[in-house]
């Protein structure tokens, strides 16, 4: 597909989305839980939309809830402690305008981490969620070097008290799973829920492939940016206000 025909195609979806919009309920829940025994499907592409104008620098609701949900302890060593989300402050040197944005795994359609992984542990699920299969991760950390978003962490010490949803241990790389366990159960990721309940509602989760979903409608009708879009990795996380 050439660039122009792609644009025409995108405009086509935008129109469809607008006509669908009146019937929308703007509750950003995921679809229903996937029935037991059914695999993730390429019909979906899960993504996040983050409006940085609603993301105050001092708010850490998304990070706190992520650590709680995934059982990430604080060893007091921020340089090496596992972090699935971090707040990054960026400043426009010309205007002095600063924005704070939560950065997590961007769940790229063309993930660099998957390309470089020598064992196949770095993988993309059919519904676009990028994961580390820790069962076959050898801890080489090529993915950490390849990821332009610095989204992954290496686990340096033995772990105890892990959450059932997030088995994790020494010697493997890990990162944001987009809360695959919650998404599969029909819930939204913990960060998004916390942002809506305790933050300012900057984050929206949904299926980018479903033209009727809030996220797809907004992506089709509002200005959104992807960070390091120049790398053409096609991330599923989009930002506004940067």
């Amino acid at each position, binding site marked *: 597909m050439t660039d122009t025909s792609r644009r025409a195609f995108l405009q086509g979806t935008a129109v469809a989305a607008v006509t669908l919009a009146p019937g929308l309920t703007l509750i950003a829940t995921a679809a229903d839980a*996937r*029935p*037991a*025994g*059914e*695999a*993730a499907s390429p019909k979906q592409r899960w993504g996040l939309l983050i409006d940085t104008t609603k993301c105050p620098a001092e708010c850490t609701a998304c990070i*706190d*809830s992520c650590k*709680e*949900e995934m059982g990430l302890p604080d060893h007091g060593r921020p340089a090496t402690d596992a972090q699935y989300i971090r707040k990054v402050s960026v400043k426009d040197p010309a205007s002095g305008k600063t924005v704070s944005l939560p950065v997590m795994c961007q769940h790229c359609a063309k993930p660099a981490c998957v390309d470089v992984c020598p064992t196949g542990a770095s*993988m993309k*699920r*059919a*519904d676009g*969620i990028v*994961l580390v*299969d*820790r*069962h076959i991760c050898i801890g080489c950390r090529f993915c950490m070097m390849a990821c332009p978003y610095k989204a992954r962490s290496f686990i340096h010490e*033995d*772990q105890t008290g*892990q*959450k*059932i949803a997030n*088995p*994790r*241990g*020494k010697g*493997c790389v890990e990162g944001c799973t987009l809360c*695959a*366990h919650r998404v*599969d*159960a029909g819930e939204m990721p*913990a960060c998004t*829920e*916390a942002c809506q*309940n*305790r933050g300012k509602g900057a984050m929206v989760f949904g299926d980018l492939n479903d033209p009727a979903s809030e996220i797809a409608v907004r992506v089709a009708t509002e200005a959104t940016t992807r960070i390091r879009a120049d790398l053409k990795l096609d991330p599923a996380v989009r930002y506004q206000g940067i």
Partner: protein
Amino acid sequence: MNRLRLAVIGFVVLATAILAGHGAMAGDGRPALPQAKGSVCVEDTQVMRRNHMDLLKHQRNDTLRQGVRGGKHSLAECVSCHATDGADGKPVPVTAEGQFCQSCHSFAAVSIDCFSCHATVPADPARTAIR
């Protein structure tokens, strides 16, 4: 010749003594396993004894790579049925001495790394997330 016979008998006696002192045994020489919750396993007991490792590996790939949830051979489910409650009412890790997975593996000289990552006790019914 006599000396050799003595040595062999001595060894057998010693080995029996060591084995007898080593953990609880069922009458037939197999380790006594703690009672599981429920009345049947996810497969026939004989199938489980022989093939649980293969079932687990399939489940692991299906769940993690394919996203299949609610699988019959889920490791989290093994733990929820096979972990016992201690005297204090708190669940005992399945990897603790004398517990289900541990006692049989130590008897069969198997070591698994699954529980360096996976939770060894069942889910806490009260979800405590601060959301």
